[in-house]
């Protein structure tokens, strides 16, 4: 076990020093290059038959889970809140997008255009989910910790219960008839979009605001952070992406029922977040990938699969609650302005000259302690 850990750390250190040794233009080109490379893989490999249908399906689920994990990580990892009913938002996105493709669009005579309207359908599902995210945001102003966990879990139950009671969308028997619009290429595109948008959010004012709430909410409000606005922003955006994932999910499974979005599903997402690492985009990608693939490999075990998940969660919480990449990030995901090298350069080229030409002598305090 120690040897495996040592090996993994060794690889990580090698990579870090390798990456640091690259010239700046190469660093900047790395991420876009990766994106383009994987795009070709996602689009052409299935068409050329290199990835068979089964593995395509698995990769699609990996992608959907990455989006789910990233969205929950925003709330639980970056903002340190207790959202444990995330599947409820996924359900909203799944049902709304399905209603659109199965009823609304055909009624409007747009059946032929549905494949082209897929992104719009997903976005509407996401927006609906985001709206329900507001419902959780407001209680979060006054309750934290355990109580918020109960609120989010209750919301999950309420959504499930409401869906079970609406006969028009199939009630407990479920809803089907969706066209198979999700394919590897679309999932890949949405994964990239999600990573990009969330990355930008995390390194912006709102991301820092969320982090400050996690670290110390009262201190945050006492340094001018508008905690209410930040909470609303984070909850709504997280629910939005969960809704997108729900829409993608519905259009690959082609059958959704309320039971698919129960606490068991929410727990799955929790496992992926805490496995990969809280407060880390790379961690979410890793966690989602490892967990999805693991469950696939364990498929022959049938019902015992669902015993492994919770058990894994418990072990994680006891032995490594921060996860694989807790609060750390892959260097190539950082925006250029967030790299320490940039800060040091700005210090030399901008700050020091500015101060030297300004009023008091900065060296008065610079050298002390």
């Amino acid at each position, binding site marked *: 076990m120690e040897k495996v850990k040592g090996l993994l750390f060794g690889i990580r250190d090698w990579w870090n020093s390798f990456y640091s040794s690259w010239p700046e233009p190469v660093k900047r080109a790395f991420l876009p290059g990766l994106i383009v490379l994987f795009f070709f893989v996602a689009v052409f490999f299935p068409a050329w038959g290199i990835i068979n249908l089964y593995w395509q399906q698995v990769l699609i689920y990996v992608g959907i889970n990455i989006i789910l994990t990233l969205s929950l990580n925003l709330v*639980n990892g970056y903002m*340190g809140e*207790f959202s*444990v009913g995330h599947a409820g938002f996924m359900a909203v996105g799944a049902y709304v997008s399905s209603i659109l493709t199965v009823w609304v669009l055909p009624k409007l005579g747009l059946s032929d255009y549905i494949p082209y309207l897929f992104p719009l359908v997903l976005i509407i599902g996401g927006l609906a989910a985001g709206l329900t995210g507001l419902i959780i945001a*407001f*209680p979060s102003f*006054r*309750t934290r*910790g*355990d*109580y918020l*966990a*109960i*609120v989010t879990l*209750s*919301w999950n*139950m*309420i959504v499930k*219960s*409401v869906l*079970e*009671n609406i006969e028009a969308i199939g009630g407990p028997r479920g809803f089907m008839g969706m066209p198979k619009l999700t394919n590897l290429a679309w999932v890949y595109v949405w994964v990239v979009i999600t990573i990009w948008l969330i990355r930008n959010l995390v390194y912006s004012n709102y991301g820092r605001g969320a982090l400050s709430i996690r670290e110390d909410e*009262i201190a945050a409000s006492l340094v001018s952070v508008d905690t209410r606005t930040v909470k609303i922003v984070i909850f709504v955006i997280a629910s939005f992406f969960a809704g997108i994932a729900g829409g993608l999910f519905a259009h690959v499974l082609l059958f959704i029922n309320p039971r698919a979005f129960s*606490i*068991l599903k929410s*727990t799955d997402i*929790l496992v992926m977040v*805490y496995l990969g690492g809280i407060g880390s985009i790379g961690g979410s990608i890793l966690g989602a990938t490892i967990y999805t693939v693991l469950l696939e490999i364990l498929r022959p075990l049938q*019902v*015992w699969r*669902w*015993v492994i*998940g*919770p*058990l894994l*969660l*418990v072990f994680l*919480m*006891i032995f490594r*609650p921060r996860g694989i990449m807790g609060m750390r990030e892959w260097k190539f995901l950082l925006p250029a302005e967030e790299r320490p090298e940039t800060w040091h350069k700005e210090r030399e080229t901008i700050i020091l000259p500015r101060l030297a030409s300004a009023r008091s002598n900065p060296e008065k305090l610079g050298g002390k302690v």
Partner: protein
Amino acid sequence: MQTFLQQVLNALQLGSVYALIALGYTMVYGIITLINFAHGDIFMVSTYVAFFVGSALISYAFKFPGIITFLLTMLASMFFTALLAVTIERFAYRPLRKAPRVSAVITALGVGLFLENFTLATIGPHPRFLPPIIPIKRFTIGGIATSNVQLIIILVSAIVMFLLDTIVRRTMVGMAMRAISWDKFTVPLMGVPMDRIISITFALGASIAAVGGTLYGMVYTIDPYMGIRIGWWAFISAVVGGIGNIRGAMLGGYLLGLVEIFTPVILPSSTYRDFVAFSLLLLLLVFRPYGLLGRPITQKV
């Protein structure tokens, strides 16, 4: 009028079970400020223990009178369930006592799900009936239809709740439990064995839930996922009454029993029960999170 009173009895029957389970939630929360999400599933396990022990006892050649079988089944269920709860506390919750809250909450969820799916995987999903430990005899009192089992449930629950109340208020152990729930830091310094008191609390909560389990199993069917349904309703009872407050849990339990029985009377369909219960919980949490009998806690800055 008679049907109304009949329904009240039904509500008391159900509410008694909810109250018994709610006590487990509330005691654990009171002592280590953890919502033991696994408690509902511990209740579920207790019903299965009662099922197996009860079946075994009934199939013995020499038949005990019903009461004896009942007591033996209940005691066996209490014992094994308490053992399970203490084990869970020792291995899943104790390591996390110093950890951030989120870890403990999520662990509790994980333990609960583990119990559900483990039971599902080993025993199977079909609902089962407990064997007739006490043969059900129906009769009417003053025109109200009831049964011996119904009265036993209501009575036994009340006795157990009274015993618990006495333990908490009159014994050293109870005093220690209450002290720890007020101040976790100073009490160990006074020589109170924290770990042992916490284990006792878990054991107590679990065995009371097991009483509820045995009683519940005598009337309703059991299945691996019942922990979610019943457990959640009991949990809502605890929160309604004021989590951490023992009398609140009892009150909450009976209230939720009334909600469950009388909701289908007011709303068109019984499938709305879940919706009503959880909406009640949500509203309560937003406007009065400390429940009916609880007190708000202020934080020092």
